[in-house]
């Protein structure tokens, strides 16, 4: 597909398309891991007083499920599409900094491996058990995470793993901001950008502003745990609330980081399969930007139960309700896009429409959270778990699946089976509603989050059983999808340049694209270059072969080499061997120097 073959070409690749595929497969594998963790959780909760796993293992399961899904599955799956699709949509040959792009991927892989190594690392820490995975919740509240209350290596794996992953996300953030702003084809004005690229841009700004805050929060935790500092310890005059503020200052923008790309995908899929332009493109773009800004103003709605006081509660309640407005605007625009269109019910469209429906439900439960009195009943119960999963599964994951069915042909040259796709969709749709809808009731009936079992007299036993059945149905649905992926490798129908009749530039080139993407960089004169509209005719696609050979940079070992220094550095505090820190820093610095002075190709 991109010429060179073999393991070495993949290890040294700087091609955004290959990096996109690497992200996809790695993230999907972690998605399956996170899903397995979910199934174990649901197996444990299927009945009251369950004995499937111990309490300690249960704590590790829900912590790792959340951490894995958010940082190792959903974000990198979005990154797979940022990588593969954005340069194509803007008419570029690659991202602004291809080696930095590769670096981001390798750092992600190493961070994910470090985090998951904790499942088996117990013996190395004389823990008396195999699994010492993080167990303090995906949001690691202080002071449960302090050494005093979490003496083992579990939380260390968590904080070190997250720090490493943060580096990956930040580097990619800078890369994509510059790419989208600076590498657009001639004529590709900002208001002609495809909505997915726009949402990607907003997301990257959220990344580069939010991740530094959690970096600081984790640094404080690290200093408390390893060097005897007291950033979160009340006995020294500090407060655990500092962690909550810093974490949610990151955490709330993070949820918009998770949802905006999926919204971007939906804004691509709906127009294509309605054969109608996105209704109110300008408003949809501005709403996305507004959501990005406003996402910074709501963080303490995660803290309504800590006693912020009536003024703070009211302010954050108001800002939280306000942020529903631009979101609602987008929903109306999506519906208006479908309205009166020529609908083709592809699997991608099913997931996109499913997104709208499920996100409305998740958004509604979110709005109920915006009221502090109501939230005091809902917080820390399964009601919140319902909300999270309607927006993140029904929202982000549905959006990502829509993207997979939509862009898989472009990325691999093969069409996924639509028949299996429909089965996947309906099983997922039914499964997710069975799994998560009851959780609204379970929560309001009083079942808290993060408890490994519950008493029969709580009255939530049958609802939990239904939820578990739904979860396993999702598992089956995902298997169907995996089968679909596997079969298309050899039996998938070959995909033409443009299987769907898309309007944007990625459909103008072969599936998969040649290594240089565009034989001739197109000049763009409209928002829907490949469609005929009342204002313009479709642009001609670039010629099959470039007029002169196009130079494409070769690969480099230095991004993965520099990346390797980070997990080595992280091992130092884990193993209490200071020399590992020096080694890790030395590897990273050496890698960076060789990278910086790598000769330009002739």
């Amino acid at each position, binding site marked *: 597909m991109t010429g060179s073959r073999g393991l070495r070409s993949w290890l040294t690749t700087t091609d955004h398309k290959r990096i996109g595929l690497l992200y996809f497969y790695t993230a999907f594998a972690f998605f399956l891991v996170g899903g397995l963790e979910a199934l174990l959780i649901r197996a444990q909760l299927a009945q009251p007083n369950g004995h499937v796993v111990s309490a300690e293992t249960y704590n590790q399961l829900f912590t790792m499920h959340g951490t894995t899904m958010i940082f190792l599955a959903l974000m990198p799956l979005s990154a797979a599409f940022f990588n593969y699709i954005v340069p194509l949509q803007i008419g570029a040959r690659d991202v*602004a*900094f291809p080696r930095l792009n590769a670096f981001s991927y390798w750092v992600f892989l190493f961070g994910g491996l470090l985090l998951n190594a904790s499942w088996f690392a117990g013996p190395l820490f004389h823990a008396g058990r195999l699994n010492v995975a993080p167990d303090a919740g995906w949001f690691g509240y202080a002071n449960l995470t302090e050494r005093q209350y979490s003496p083992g290596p579990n939380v260390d794996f968590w904080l070190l793993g997250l720090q490493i992953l943060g580096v990956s996300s*930040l580097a990619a*953030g*800078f*890369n994509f*901001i*510059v790419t989208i*702003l*600076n*590498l*657009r084809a001639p004529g*590709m004005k900002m208001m002609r950008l495809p909505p997915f690229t726009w949402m990607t841009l907003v997301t990257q700004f959220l990344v*580069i*502003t*939010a*991740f*530094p*805050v959690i*970096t*600081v*929060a984790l*640094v*404080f935790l690290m*200093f408390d745990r390893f*060097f*005897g*500092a*007291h*950033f979160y310890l009340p*006995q*020294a*005059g*500090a407060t655990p609330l*500092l962690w909550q503020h*810093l974490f949610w*200052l990151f955490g709330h923008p993070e949820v918009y980081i998770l949802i905006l790309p999926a919204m971007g995908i939906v804004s691509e899929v709906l127009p294509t399969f309605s054969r109608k332009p996105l209704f109110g493109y300008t408003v949809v773009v501005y709403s996305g930007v507004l959501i990005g800004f406003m996402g910074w103003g709501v963080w303490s709605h995660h803290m309504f139960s800590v006693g912020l006081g009536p003024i703070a509660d009211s302010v954050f309640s108001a800002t939280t309700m306000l942020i529903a407005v631009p979101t609602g605007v987008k929903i109306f625009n999506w519906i208006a896009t479908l309205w009166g269109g020529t609908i083709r019910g592809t699997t991608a469209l099913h997931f996109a429409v499913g997104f709208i429906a499920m996100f409305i439900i998740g958004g509604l439960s979110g709005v109920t959270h915006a009221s502090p009195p109501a939230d005091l009943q809902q917080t820390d119960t399964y009601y919140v778990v319902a909300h999270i999963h309607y927006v993140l599964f029904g929202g982000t994951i549905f959006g990502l699946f829509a993207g997979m069915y939509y862009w898989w042909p472009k990325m691999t040259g093969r069409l996924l089976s639509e028949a299996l796709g429909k089965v996947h969709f309906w099983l997922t749709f039914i499964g997710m509603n069975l799994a998560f809808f009851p959780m609204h009731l379970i929560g309001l009936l009083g079942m808290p989050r993060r408890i490994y079992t519950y008493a029969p007299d709580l009255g939530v036993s049958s609802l939990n059983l239904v939820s578990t059945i739904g979860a396993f149905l999702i598992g089956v649905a995902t298997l169907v999808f995996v089968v679909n992926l596997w079969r298309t490798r050899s039996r998938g129908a070959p995909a033409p340049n443009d299987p769907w009749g898309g309007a944007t530039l990625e459909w103008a080139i072969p599936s998969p694209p040649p290594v240089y993407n565009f034989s001739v960089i197109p000049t763009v004169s409209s928002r829907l270059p490949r469609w005929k509209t009342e204002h313009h005719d479709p642009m001609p696609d670039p010629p099959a072969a470039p007029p002169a050979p196009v130079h494409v940079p070769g690969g480099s070992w230095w991004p993965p080499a520099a990346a390797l220094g980070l997990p080595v550095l992280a091992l130092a505090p884990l193993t209490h061997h200071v020399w590992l820190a020096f080694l890790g820093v030395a590897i990273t*610095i050496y890698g960076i*120097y060789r990278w910086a002075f790598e000769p330009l190709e002739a």
Partner: protein
Amino acid sequence: MVTSMGLDSRKMAFWAFIGSECLLFGSLISTYLIYKGKSVVGPYPHDILNIPFTSVSTFDLLMSSLMMVLALAAVQRGDLKWAKIWLFATACLGILFLGGQVYEFSSFVREGLTLQTNLFGCTFYVLTGTHGAHVTVGVLWLLTLWVRALQGKLGPAQALTVEISGLYWHFVDVVWIVIFTLVYLIQ
């Protein structure tokens, strides 16, 4: 290279990075301010902070920023001799600053302020330590450029690299201006 905004990609990336660093230092400074006056035991800032000494450090960094822009100007006009001098001078002032930090930290430890002592210790050392780590990276960067100059490989064509290292260096200086005011002068 032609770009859509007519701006250099590396420079754009670096300004985005500096924006991101504002949030990093902003969080550290916020924490310092939140915990100011909340230490349960001493030593407290007024017991231990040495304003005359730190004023000299501040002056040192300000002068290093001047050396840095002079270094950039030299590189831009192809003056290798002065480029070497100013780059080395900037790095030296940076090393001097770091030496001052080491001296300050060790004297504070002797006077009983460690990371574990109290909130002032935690927040002070982590904030100024993070800043110091940034200065260290900057010094390494400057020395690398100085070596390139010694090798005769730092001409006007490389001016952008020097400019970007200058952006980093000035930002680190600017963070210190904020720290000097909020930590040392406003007690």
